[in-house]
């Protein structure tokens, strides 16, 4: 059976927990998406922009040195080479075309690391839509370059001062704006979360990653991989990679969550959270026993979120995927490892997945792995520098 079901559920997870005001626009979105999916010209159009504008297909690169170092056979799915520097553009192109298809003139978006904000601002420019991006004040400070990029692209970046001033609050604020201007505004959600049909739509637009990777690995290795490894915040790059391998039961999925600083301060919703409802979906949520959502932390702003896409929660509970944690310090090691061995500077988000390969290698020598290199590290250089300086000072 295809998931989600008609009510937006992946097993026990998902659904649509929203203020009543949003009901009709989600219905409108469901209908428009169903129409667009069947519309050949929509697909042709999207394929054109993915290829000519975003530079798809991305390469599946055999990381020779990393493989030798770890005793694995590692291929990198190079989403970092896409226009704007991360996988986010796949989804933004798809949804912006959908917004246009629906006749909307304005998009709003939330962003954590700024990668989704940049890709939303980019497609808004491309398709002549106006664009407001909600971003936590703390994230604006630590991702200054992306803020500047969005401004250059003509988007309005709206600082969010509530709560922890990170992605969670940016998301709440974007929903508030959406409730307010629901009649003419399209909410371009950046990851596989939110109310139905967003987790499905974002997954579908990101599934191009796994679709390509599956064909590429078969061509290069004449077989399917043993493991797929990707970082999980909201979970869109991971779901994008995993989805087309769902029926390949021997291919194991590993989602790497941000272990942050400790068991008490992290962003690992599946590993350390409980089932709850956040931003429209039932999923694993980092929360206290009274159902208040906890403050989170990750060195990677793009993983710094207390919830996770409901389909990942479903993969976890049905044992289709395994979800593990990698701490800040380990992610930094992953960051250095890939930079030094392969000459590729990864985003700190992806660096979590890279580090995990080290753990994976211990018991799985020689295994064939595809790792989703979801973004490039340029945006993170200041952060990495400050951590390295702190390390030096001891």
């Amino acid at each position, binding site marked *: 059976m295809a998931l989600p079901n008609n*009510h937006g559920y992946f097993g026990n997870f998902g*659904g*649509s*927990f*929203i*203020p*009543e*005001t949003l*009901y*009709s*626009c989600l219905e409108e979105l469901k209908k428009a998406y169903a129409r667009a999916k069947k519309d050949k010209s929509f697909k042709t159009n999207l394929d054109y922009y993915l290829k000519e504008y975003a530079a798809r297909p991305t390469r599946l690169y055999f990381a020779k040195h990393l493989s030798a170092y770890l005793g694995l056979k590692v291929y990198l799915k190079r989403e970092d080479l896409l226009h704007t520097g991360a996988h986010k553009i796949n989804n933004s192109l798809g949804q912006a075309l959908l917004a246009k298809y629906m006749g909307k003139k304005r998009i709003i978006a939330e962003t954590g690391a700024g990668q989704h904000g940049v890709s939303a601002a980019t497609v808004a420019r491309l398709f002549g839509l106006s664009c407001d991006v909600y971003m936590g004040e703390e994230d604006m400070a630590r991702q200054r370059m992306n803020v500047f990029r969005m401004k250059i692209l003509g988007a309005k970046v709206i600082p969010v001062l*509530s*709560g922890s001033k990170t992605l*969670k*609050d940016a998301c*709440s604020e974007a*929903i*508030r704006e959406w*409730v*307010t*201007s*629901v*009649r003419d505004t399209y909410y371009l959600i950046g990851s596989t979360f939110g109310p139905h049909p967003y987790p499905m739509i974002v997954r579908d637009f990101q599934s191009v990653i796994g679709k390509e990777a599956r064909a590429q690995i078969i061509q290069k290795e004449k077989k399917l991989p043993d493991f797929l490894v990707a970082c999980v915040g909201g979970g869109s790059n991971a779901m994008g990679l995993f989805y087309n391998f769902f029926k390949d039961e021997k291919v194991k999925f590993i989602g790497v969550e941000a272990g942050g600083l400790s068991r008490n301060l992290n962003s690992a919703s599946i590993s350390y959270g*409980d089932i*709850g*409802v*956040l*931003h*429209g979906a039932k999923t694993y*949520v980092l*929360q206290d*026993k*009274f*159902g*208040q*959502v906890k403050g989170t932390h990750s060195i990677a702003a793009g993983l710094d979120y207390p919830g996770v896409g409901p389909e990942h929660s479903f993969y976890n509970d049905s044992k289709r995927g395994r979800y593990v944690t990698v701490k800040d310090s380990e992610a930094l090691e992953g960051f250095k490892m890939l930079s030094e061995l392969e000459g590729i500077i990864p985003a700190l988000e992806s660096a979590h997945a890279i580090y995990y390969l080290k753990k994976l290698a211990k018991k799985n020598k020689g295994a064939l792995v595809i790792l989703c290199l979801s973004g490039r590290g340029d945006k993170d250089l200041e952060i990495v520098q400050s951590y390295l300086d702190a390390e030096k000072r001891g």
Partner: protein
Amino acid sequence: MNIKQKFQQLKKEGRKAFIAYVPFGFPSIAKTKDILLALQEAGVDIIELGIPFSDPIADGPIIQAATAVALAKGANTKNIISTLKALKPSLKVPLALMTYYNPILQAGVAKFFSQMRQAGACAILTVDLPIDEAHEYRRLAKKYGIETVFFITPVTPKERAKKIIRSASGFLYYISVTGTTGLGKTLSFTSLARHIKQLKLQTELPICVGFGIHTRKQIERVWNFSDGAIVGSGIVKFIADNHSKRNFLNRLKKYVKSLKPD
């Protein structure tokens, strides 16, 4: 007195409902007790007591800020019940709890309903639980004698409104604007009146109007075509601005009375 009896009484007396919203735990748990009693003395017909939630996606800045204070003061689903139990002998105004879904999901919906019933609350409004997700919730609410209020908005399609009416009890909450709670909204009274008139043809349930309503004049106008007006952010702002002043409770009573049309 429960909500049904309250509306029957109001109808008999030819009056409309004045409903006040305050968040539990703001500015402190102890002061919430005094505030609830002050609202009662000021002649509020129904009190909506908000359960603070860390991510109030339907609330504007005033209630967001109050909620953050309440959470910092330790407000939660456990001490809201114990506070209400302690107040039960003196608080006679029908009490509805307004919440987001996650706090009651974690408390256990059945357990929470049974406890709130014992504590004297008679209705629940859950902002982010639309009827489609509310089957079990409604079943349990019925079992424990809790009325389930649902929302209708200016963008609710007609067919949808019918379903909501069938799912609701106690009263219907008509959200006056597309947007969050707060002040400074532009209310279109003509279209409000028209929508509510249409809904009235379909249901006997009282229809009360909330969001953006905070002046006596607005309340008067809303009363013309509905069964009640809900004031939230206006009162919360008054509490925020005045709770540390002398004679705060008297000021609050005076303010609330000044909102209520004769």
